């Protein structure tokens, strides 16, 4: 009988997902009944609280909107910087390769939290050392710089792996048609490589989206910090943090499922 259910789910995907949601919600409910019988969700879900969580304080961008903003800006900038370092890392010219290796390995060996602190501490120091003024930048800008630096190292590795994955035959075919090195690279190799890298990029974006929660530590009022501010006021941590977890989960999960679909489409295209 169980086997019939299996085959049914294989064919009817929507019913499968409905089943999954029902099971998970039931499991969570059972957990809640044991761990935390008296819930006060109503006090959390006020209009003001929700507005704060999703959009921040009136007059400034905060909350989930800021979370997305941080993630999008950082991924865009790190895409550019990471591509530069990634190509440099892949190239065989020592002048480019060695600095790239140092940059990438240094950033990848450091916890994101340390990068955030380091940027926060380093900016006044460097501005003093080079410009003789004590620069003060907003925590949000510092966070963006930190996220960009950190993610660019991982993007660089994705780019390097992507270029490496292009079969040598492509280089040879382009050369034999008369393209020089630069043309080969820009017109033939990079387009293919970047298409292959899309799933990895999306996955990196999802990771960055989750990591924006770390901006909490330098005072950026994004989604997570907004939640902790409400928690400091209401002390209803089960309700608040389970809601936060649910929101992050829904967004991150949907994005990675979307990425899977993309991956399948890309695979079909490239296996021509």
């Amino acid at each position, binding site marked *: 009988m169980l086997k019939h259910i299996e085959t049914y789910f294989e064919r009817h995907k929507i019913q499968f997902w409905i089943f999954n949601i029902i099971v998970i919600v039931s*499991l969570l409910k059972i957990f809640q009944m044991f761990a935390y019988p008296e819930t006060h969700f109503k006090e959390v879900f006020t209009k003001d609280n929700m507005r704060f969580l999703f959009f921040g304080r009136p007059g400034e961008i905060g909350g989930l909107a800021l979370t997305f903003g941080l993630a999008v800006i950082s991924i865009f900038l790190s895409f550019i910087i990471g591509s530069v370092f990634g190509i440099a890392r892949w190239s065989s010219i020592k002048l480019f390769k060695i600095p790239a290796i140092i940059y990438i390995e*240094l950033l990848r060996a450091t*916890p994101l939290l*340390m990068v955030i*602190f380091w940027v926060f*501490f380093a900016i006044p120091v460097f501005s003093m050392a080079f410009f003789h003024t004590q620069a003060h930048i907003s925590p949000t800008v510092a966070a963006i710089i930190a996220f960009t630096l950190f993610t660019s190292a991982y993007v660089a590795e994705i780019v390097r792996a992507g270029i490496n994955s292009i079969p040598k035959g492509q280089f040879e075919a382009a050369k034999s048609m008369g393209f020089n090195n630069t043309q080969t690279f820009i017109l033939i190799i990079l387009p293919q490589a970047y298409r292959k890298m899309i799933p990895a990029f999306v996955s990196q974006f999802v990771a960055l989206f989750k990591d924006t929660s770390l901006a909490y530590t330098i005072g950026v009022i994004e989604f997570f910090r907004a939640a902790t501010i409400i928690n400091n006021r209401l002390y209803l*941590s089960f309700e608040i943090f389970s809601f936060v977890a649910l929101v992050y*989960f829904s967004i991150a999960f949907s994005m990675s499922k979307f990425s899977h679909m993309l991956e399948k489409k890309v695979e079909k295209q490239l296996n021509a």
Partner: protein
Amino acid sequence: MGYEFDWSVLIEYKSLLIQGLVTTIKLSVLGIFFSFLIGSVIGIGRASKNFWLSLFASYYVESFRNIPLIVQMFFIYFTFTLSQIFPFLNSWGNFLGLHDVDAFFSALIALILYTGAYIGEVVKAGINSVPKGQFEAAQSLGMNKFQVMWYIVYPQAIRIIIPPLTSQFLNLIKNSSLAMTLGVAELTFATQQIDAETFRGFEAATAVTILYIVLTLSTSFLMNLIEIKFSKGVKNA
């Protein structure tokens, strides 16, 4: 005049740095050990041919992978008072020389559950990469499912698993820095402490970064040795 670097604070505050390092090591060692255990169980479940087992294992993996680690830490720390629910944690805390039992174990549990989910996928991929013929040969000799996994499949999977596993272990070491948000006095916390007292955050951050690099390099090195040991004689038949 530019900024005057004062590296001597590092020597003055070296006990803070060392304490931070030790706490990070405690979190990392315990975290690595238990997340590997959980990850192996989940991974074997994920790779299982039983649809339901695989499905429930995937519930675990997707849940813990898609929620930020810091959220998991806060949820556990603020919702439950671990030392009340599990009094034995107090004696463990004494044994480990911990100051804040609740914070340490909340962070540790979240770290284990989070990393365990990622390791689960790594283990699944490793088991799936063992050729089907190995299962079949073991089964045809009369071995039951546990014997097949324990004597034949898992030993072969481990060799393949080690590089991505190492990467997850390194992630765990880096992620341990999040424990500072609960007040656990590990390395990153030490950076802030030194800065708070001396305003020499830059020097402190540099020193701490170097320490993290030392930690990650040593772990990579150790895992490399382990990989070599497991590769002795394991070639494809």
